Structures are given as C-alpha cells and as structure tokens.
C-alpha cells in the first residue's frame, strides 16, 4: 500500500492521466452497451470494438516499436518507416498472389546482391594501391557509368512474368480479385528474347560486381588518410562465400524456375502466406541494411540531414511502388485457415473455428473476424513479448539499452557499435515490413498506406513516450482503441442531451480526435506517458 502511494506521489501526472483515460474508456464502453439486450449480448459491440482496437493498435505497435528503438539508439528519425511498412505489404502480396513473379524476380536480385557482396574484398584489395590512388577521384565514377551501361543493357532483358498496370485483364487489381475468388490463373512464363540467357545472366552478375567495385571506390575515397584500419582484421573471405552462395542460388532458381513456380502455385494459401511473411520481413531487413550502410551512416552527426534524407527515401519508395504495382487500390486475400465460410461457420466455439477454419467466430451474439480481430492482436502480443525478451535477456538487447544512453561509451568498451546500429536498423525495418504484410489482408494495399500509418505511429509514440518500448505498445493500443471507438460511434451515434438527433462522428474526425488526444496528453505530460524526463 505504501509503495502504491509512493508511486502515486512520484508520478502524479501519469496516474491522473491514466485514471482520466480509464474514465473516458469506461464511459465509452457504457455508451456502446446495448441496454435492451439480455446477458452477455449487451456487450457485443464493446467486445468487437475493443478487439478491433487491439488489431489496429497491434499494427501501429509493430511499426512504432522499430521506429522508437532506432530513434533511441541512433537519434535517427526514420521518416521512411511508413514507406518500408508499405513495401512489406506489397512484397508480401506479390509472394502470396503471384509467387511466379516473386520467383522470377528472385534471380536478378540474388545475382546483383551476390556481386555486391564483394565490397569488403575490393575495399581491402584496392585500398592504398599507388596506381589507383592517382586516379582516385575518377575511377569510381567510371565504374558507376560502366555499371549503369551493363545493367541498362541486361537487367530489363531478364524475363519477369509480372502484370501490366495499364491493362485491367493483367493488372494487380484483377489478380487480387481472382485470388480472393480462388480463380487465379497466372500468365505463361516468359523467356529471354533477343539475347542469349548466358549473356543476360552473366551481364547481371558483372553489373553487380562492378557496382561493388564502384561502392568500394567511393568508400576508400572518403576514408581519412591517417587510417590504417583494414590490416588489423582478417581477410574478408566470408563475403566471397556469401557472393558465391547467392549467385549459385540465383542461377539454381533460374534453371528450376518453372517447377518452383508451379510448386508454389499449388500450395495452400496458408503456406503461401507464411512464405509471404518470411520474404517480406527479409526484404525489409535487407532494405534496412542497404539504407543504413549506404546513406544514413554517413550522416549520423547531422540530424536534420538524416530527416531530409529519410523523407526523400520515403518519396522514392512510394514512387517505386506506384511504378511497379500501380496506383489503384487492391486487396490481399486472407490465408485459408482464416477464410472458411459455409459449413460450421461462423464458428460457435474456438475449437470449431480451428476445425472449420472459419473466417468469423460468434462472440456474444456478434461476429468477430478471426484474422483481423483475433490473429493480428495475438501476433502483436507475440512480437511484444519477443522484442521484450530480446531487449532484456540478450547481449544485443543489453548493448542496445546501454547504447540508447551513451553509444560512445559502448564503443569504448570494445564493441562495434556501427554493426549494432546496422543490426538494429535491419530489425526495426523488418518489424515494419512484418506489420505491412500482416496488415495487408485487413486494410488492403494503397500507395498512401505508409503515410497514414506514419502519422498514426508518430502520434502513438508521442503519447507513449518517444524512446520508450512500453510506451510504443501503450501508445499504439490507445490510438487503436480510440479510433475504433470513434468509428463505431460513427455508426450508432452518441446521444447528447438537448440534441434531437444522436451525434455521429464523421470519418475525418478519426484522425482529428487522435491528434486531439495527443495534444491533451502532451499538455499534461510533455514526455509522453512513459517517456524519460531528461
């Protein structure tokens, strides 16, 4: 009792805010309770709205947690986080709906990345070479031009059976619709035209290697003259192994392309969905590594430039997505274990839901969608626990928590902080991509997906406290619940005394109320609910 009282005195504002939020929450629940119904059915709307709030909150949390850890550790406000969330959704959709295209695209990406993996080796071999350093400011640019020529010549020739944004018959919109109806027919695979496969594949590999040499050149040029770093470390043989493995894998996929595609197309949608999650998360992590190592790393000291840079990356990613997948909105079907209708559905019990793989389950007389309102919140909780364990129980987590406070001291202990930064950035972007692919079947895919999520996420983090991990979870949940309650009240209306008609909040009020809540909380607690007072 004493400790409770002490905690109340110490965190008075926090307690008052939490109690106020609780009162608003209780009032909102009372408003949704159906007084005429009997028994548990009175709370039908309440339960469904809360579950929806958890669902929205989970997606916001997945993105916000990565964003806040990155900001806490590196002081980088990654404005591209929303766009990377969107990439997760689009890549996941591609794997789930058009696995043949994903297989086609894998080979050129693997070959390019494979060649690119050699950067540390070129760095070691070309550094401090007399005959190169005389032309040090020219040859990387020559390398860049040569890379572009080779890639422009070969890369577009690689046959990728995709879609045509311009014609409805073979547009993503149509494929998405067909997939949701279970009548998807993918086009015939394409072949190399006007170029021999050997030259095409070899050219892409060459392009990747040239790109690696170019990057190594720029890296060497930027290095201060006094540095004699590389001799201290063992020769980077493992990058050669990665390179060869990736190229071998890319070629293997190329030669067995048709059988792999056919196998994937014959898979159940649940398995494809799991594969989509894996591919989306790995793509996100890989993009995170690319963005961190090639761009953000050079600008850590200048926070404003990082902000501008990530905003630019955000815009570029949105345009790339528009070019590849097109601007029109389309849907992603749910995996089969959450899509069952008919026999035994809506499920009456949890066991029946598992047995019939129902899309909906009956709770207190209402229907709850199993994917949106059960699976997503459960996954959110699983990720919450997993990240919590990672932060509190592993050495990486310990280094991250220490680095949030003083990354210079962590480095002085003999820890490669740069590598930790890259790892954390990859993890954070991977989490965002996970949010994207998980959210896609519930929200659909649009090119504005990232922007709206970015706003929600920033609001949630401001409410919860910018660099606090529990704050990211609490903020996401509060924003999710608030939005879903307002949407629900928009349907049934609020009875306000002396007003004849019930007041129905319109959809534009949803973001407005979210921001209003943030403003109120920040007025009382400028650091957010769980932020640290500096």
């Amino acid at each position, binding site marked *: 009792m004493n400790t409770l009282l002490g905690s109340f005195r110490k965190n008075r504002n926090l307690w008052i805010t939490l109690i106020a939020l609780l009162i608003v929450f209780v009032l909102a629940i009372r408003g949704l309770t159906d007084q005429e119904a009997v028994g548990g059915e009175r709370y039908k709307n309440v339960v469904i709205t809360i579950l929806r709030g958890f669902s929205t909150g989970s997606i916001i949390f997945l993105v916000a947690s990565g964003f806040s850890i990155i900001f806490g550790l590196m002081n980088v406000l990654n404005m591209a986080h929303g766009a990377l969330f969107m990439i997760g959704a689009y890549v996941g959709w591609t794997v789930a709906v058009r696995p043949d295209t994903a297989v086609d695209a894998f080979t050129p990406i693997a070959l390019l990345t494979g060649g690119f993996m050699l950067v540390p080796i070129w760095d070691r071999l070309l550094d401090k070479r007399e005959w190169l350093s005389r032309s040090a400011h020219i040859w990387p640019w020559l390398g860049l031009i040569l890379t572009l020529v080779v890639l422009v010549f070969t890369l577009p020739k690689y046959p990728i059976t995709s879609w045509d944004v311009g014609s409805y018959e073979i547009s993503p919109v149509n494929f998405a619709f067909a997939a949701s109806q279970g009548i998807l027919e993918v086009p015939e695979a394409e072949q190399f035209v006007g170029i021999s496969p050997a030259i095409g594949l070899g050219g892409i590999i060459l392009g990747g290697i040239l790109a690696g040499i170019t990057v190594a050149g720029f890296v060497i040029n930027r290095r201060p003259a*006094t540095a*004699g770093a590389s001799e*201290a470390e063992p020769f980077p043989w493992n990058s050669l192994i990665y390179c060869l493995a990736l190229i071998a894998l890319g070629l293997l996929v190329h030669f067995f392309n048709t059988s792999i595609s056919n196998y994937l197309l014959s898979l159940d949608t649940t398995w494809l969905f799991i594969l989509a999650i894996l591919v989306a998360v790995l793509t996100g992590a890989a993009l995170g590594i690319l963005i961190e190592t090639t761009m953000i790393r050079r600008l850590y000291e200048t926070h404003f430039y990082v902000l501008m840079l990530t905003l630019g990356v955000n815009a570029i990613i949105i345009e790339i997505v528009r070019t590849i997948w097109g601007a029109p909105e389309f849907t992603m079907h749910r995996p089969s274990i959450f899509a069952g209708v008919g026999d035994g559905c809506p499920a009456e019990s949890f066991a029946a839901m598992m047995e019939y793989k129902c899309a909906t389950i009956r709770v207190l007389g209402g229907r709850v969608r199993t994917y949106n309102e059960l699976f997503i919140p459960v996954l959110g909780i699983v990720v919450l626990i997993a990240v919590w364990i990672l932060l509190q129980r592993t050495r990486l987590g*310990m*280094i991250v928590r220490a680095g949030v406070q003083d990354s210079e001291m962590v480095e*002085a*202990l*003999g820890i*490669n902080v740069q590598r930790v930064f890259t790892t954390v950035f990859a993890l954070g972007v991977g989490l965002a991509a996970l949010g994207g692919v998980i959210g896609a079947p519930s929200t659909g895919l649009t090119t504005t997906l990232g922007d709206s999520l970015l706003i929600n996420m920033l609001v949630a983090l401001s409410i919860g406290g910018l660099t606090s991990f529990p704050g990211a979870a609490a903020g996401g949940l509060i924003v999710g619940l608030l939005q879903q309650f307002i949407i629900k009240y928009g349907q049934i209306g609020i009875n306000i005394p002396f007003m004849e008609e019930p007041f129905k909040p319109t959809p534009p009020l949803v973001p407005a109320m979210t921001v209003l809540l943030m403003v109120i909380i920040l007025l009382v607690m400028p650091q957010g609910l769980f932020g640290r007072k500096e």
Partner: protein
Amino acid sequence: MDNNILLKVEDIHTFIGQFHILQGVSVEVPKGTIVALLGRNGAGKTTTLKSILGLTPPTRGQVVFDGKQIQGLRSYDIATMGIGFVPEHRAIFRDLSVLENLRIAERQKGDLEKKEDFIFSLFPDLKRLIKLPGTNLSGGQQQMLAVARALVPENKLLLIDEPSEGLAPVIIEQMMEAIRQLSAETTVLLVEQNFTVASQLAQDYIIIEEGHSVKSGVMADLVNDPETIHRYLEAA
C-alpha cells in the same frame, strides 16, 4: 623504441568541430606505473584520453600502444587491444543493473567470472548491489562501478578520468586505495583535478595547458616545486 614504454603519444593534434583542442600533446606511460595528466579545466586532458581511444581521432601525430600504431583505428579495435576507459562524471549505464554493467564489458564469455574475485575484493559494496539498476546507486558506488567495469576484460592500460570528482573524502580514500591496488596489475593514465589525490597516487606527471603538453617529470619533484604548481595548476 624503449620496451618499457606501454603508451607513447607523440605530438597529436585533435579538432572537435572547428575547435583545435589539442595542439601538440605528447605523453609517455611506462609499464606498471601510474601517470597523472594534470592541468586546469579545459586544458585538453579529457580530449587527450579520448584521442588515445580514437573517440575524437587525432588528425596529426601518432599514438603507439604496446608497440603498435593505433591512431586512425576504430575505437572498438583500440579498446579491444587492451585499453580500458573510465570516463568522467561516473558514466555508467543507468538503465542496466550492476551485473549488466559488468557483463557488457566482457570481450569473451566468462571474462567476468575470471575477474570477479579481484573486483569484489576492491569494491565489496558492488557484490551486495549486484541486482540493482545503476540509477539507484550513490555517486561513490557509481564511480566504483565505472572503475570495476574497466577491470572486467584483460586490459593492459586503464584511462581513468577524474575518479575523485564530486565524491566525499571517505569515498575518495577508498577509491585511491582501489586504484593503488589495481595498479599492481595494470598500468594507469590518470586525469585528476585534485592535486593531493594525484600526487599521492602517481609516480610521473604530465602537465597540459591550452592544448599543449608543457611539462613532464617525476611526481616527487613536482610536489617540491611550488612555482610550477602555482603557474600551471592553481586556479588562475
């Protein structure tokens, strides 16, 4: 080169932003000794330590540690070669427990187990506090933890920045005793404002003024040289 010299800093220049902080600092630390880096506030003592570690890399001059040139290497590589750093202001990790503060300094699994008897014999308090978060420790305990953290891996050299700053006299006594004991195993380069503390601990001294190393020698001589003390060390 003299085999007995563990660290040799030769005429280093360091910029922080546009400010030319170090304009020619030379330091020699013989093996097995405590060398005190003296000078007024803002003379460049802390920057010298950070330049050795590569946290603020020197743009000119050279740093030789254990026979190898280390200037220009990355900080974590320099630290891994066997240099421990105890920063000023008791910079422990406040969100980490005492145990985690020690664990994070491990370079190999089991480093702490090898050294814990020695560490806890120097600072018995820490053993009792092992589970507490760093933020709950008193100032003296935090300083002990900061020193203990640098003792976890096998370090040949410790850079200790202002260990007595802001501590009560009793605690300073305890800290001095600990530094004396640990110097039996490790060489120490010590930055210290408190001349009494520095003169009792160190065998040699180096005085830095306005980014230049201006005078060095044996501590016993400096103690009997009030003129030098007045000129370089007493508040202007």
